[in-house]
């Protein structure tokens, strides 16, 4: 059982300008530790001309007090995708990894569809200036659908371990109509891919979900994040029902947890995360989009709360793990 000290909602949308046209949301916070400060990237939203929203990347920097941000980016950290590309309609989320002097950003690119809302594929962007700006490694994705992972390949999280790059990500199993839903809803699961260089990836087991579902076959699992603490790897993710999840708190996102010693076999044990919904406040009806990171000797968990992170993101610090 993990014990966490909740530090509250450390970033609130609206406290600082995020640049012209930004209307709401600070979703899927992702950390890049930079010595005595941490830069937290997130996806915020701009309204496009057709009234829909485009996710775009910003960041905020904090010191260890996690009081008001030291600095907030108002610029386009990565330019929008070109016409017809996989990330034309936004990036959400974007995961950072230091590789030599460069910073690799693994992006979840969004592209709108006709018969269903959207599709996703995973891209790679690289920064040569310490993470202020990112350039795409190419206009296309580095990981997309395959024979048994037909759609919605996104939510990358990359870790280097045992001389390899490991990616945990999600894939869609399909879209379904549900009673009470006005639009088709997607179902997705967590999977694992490997790479020698961080660019060319192979799926470990095409179409194989690595985390068992607790809400039935239609459980949606998203945004895996993995950190080694001692001899054990810890994975936090979020999960929900496939339908009626947006406004019904009983069916919305919760944080899930699994542990492993070999990065391949995972034991799911959500209760062992020890971070339930708060009784009131910013994460009282939903917890989602977790991100684990270590900073010196401390371990932190970033995540979003109610309304999928419409108003900001929060933080908890690990106090200890009881075996």
């Amino acid at each position: 059982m993990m014990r966490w000290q909740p530090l509250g909602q450390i970033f609130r949308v609206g406290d600082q300008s995020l640049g012209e046209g930004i209307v709401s949301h600070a979703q899927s916070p992702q950390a890049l530790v930079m010595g005595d400060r941490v830069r937290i990237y997130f996806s915020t939203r701009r309204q496009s001309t057709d009234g829909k929203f485009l996710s775009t990347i910003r960041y905020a920097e904090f010191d260890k007090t996690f009081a008001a941000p030291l600095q907030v980016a108002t610029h386009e950290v990565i330019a929008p995708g070109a016409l017809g590309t996989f990330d034309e309609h936004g990036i959400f989320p974007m995961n950072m990894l230091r590789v030599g002097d460069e910073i690799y950003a693994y992006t979840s690119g969004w592209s709108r569809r006709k018969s269903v809302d959207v599709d996703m594929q995973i891209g790679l962007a690289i920064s040569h200036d310490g993470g202020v700006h990112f350039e795409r490694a190419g206009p296309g994705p580095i990981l997309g659908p395959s024979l048994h992972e037909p759609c919605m390949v996104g939510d990358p999280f990359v870790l280097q371990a045992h001389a390899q790059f490991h990616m945990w990500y999600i894939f869609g199993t399909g879209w379904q109509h549900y009673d009470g839903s006005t639009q088709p809803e997607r179902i997705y699961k967590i999977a694992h891919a490997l790479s020698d260089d961080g660019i060319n990836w192979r799926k470990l087991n095409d179409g194989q979900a690595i985390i068992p579902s607790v809400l039935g076959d239609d459980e949606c699992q998203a945004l895996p994040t993995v950190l080694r603490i001692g001899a054990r790897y810890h994975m936090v993710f979020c999960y929900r029902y496939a339908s009626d999840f947006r406004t019904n708190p009983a069916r919305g996102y919760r944080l899930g947890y699994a542990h492993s010693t070999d990065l391949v076999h995972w034991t799911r044990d959500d209760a062992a995360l020890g971070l339930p919904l708060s009784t009131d406040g910013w994460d009282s009806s939903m917890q989602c989009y977790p991100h684990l990171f270590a900073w010196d000797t401390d371990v932190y968990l970033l995540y979003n709360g109610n309304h999928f992170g419409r108003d900001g993101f929060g933080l908890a610090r690990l106090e200890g793990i009881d075996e």
Partner: protein
Amino acid sequence: MVQWQWEKRGLVFDVQALPNRPEWFDAFAQAPNAIVLNDRVRVYFCCRPKADAHGMFVSYGAYVDFDRRDLTRIIGMAEQPIMPLGGLGMFDEFGTYPISTIKDGDDVYAYFGGWTRGASVPFNVSIGVAKSRDGGVQFEKLGPGPVLGHALDEPFVVTSPKIRKYGDTWWLIYTAGTRWFMHEGRAEIVYKLRAAHSPDGLNWTRLGYNLLPDKLGPDEAQACGDVLFHNGAYHMFYCYREATNFRHAKDRTYRIGYARSTDMLHWERDDSKAGIDISPEGWDSDMVAYPHVFALDGEIYMLYLGNEVGRAGFGLAQLKGSLA
């Protein structure tokens, strides 16, 4: 020096001449592709029902059987599409076109372009694979997703597959989109011929470069790289066009080109050798497109499309001379 010419045999598959076509086969017989069976040559093609209320088409695969001894005589037809369209949100929800088939032992494999529809551009395409265990009548997809999707430098519209197997190596010659752009209010696409190889037909390694130099400039669109190994060399016939104003301007639309290789990796383009061009009048007077070349009983044939990319059906031509 002209080494060969294609002698045209006419519109051997004339859609309008077929009575009582089913609802899924209103018009078009596109991207013909043959397998040779005992007594017949089975030619797969792609056809369409009528457009929907928004003017949008879907595309199905089917086949027609010709008498092996007389390639103008039809002796059979598919009674239903060879495979269904994909489900909601899948890569092939709105079409399976083009289709390339290959016999491998007792099985027949079909590689196909699966069509989805985008919000900002009209379509996107990835390549799927299906397998037939009944000699090529019905095909079962090997999975709900694509076998060759998009990649870092092949960002969209990966389509026009041509499947081949030489020795133990499988080859896909295909088209990859390089650029969408708006022209007169319409999204237009540029695509180039590319190739990938595989030990099993499922796990593919992309060559990662354009197979051919551009003849019409960077916006030339190239499709249907159909390869025949003959006389110790690989002969590729393909089609190419301008990226804009190609729908109604006959001098900007598809023509058939030719390139030669000895290793499937490096190609010498020389369209002057193609040996086939538009006719002065008739069904192939505006364009010639989507060639498929195959050997049969000592002769070499080409199936190809004419005006409006095969709306009327497909034609046949026979090689005169020697592919060297």
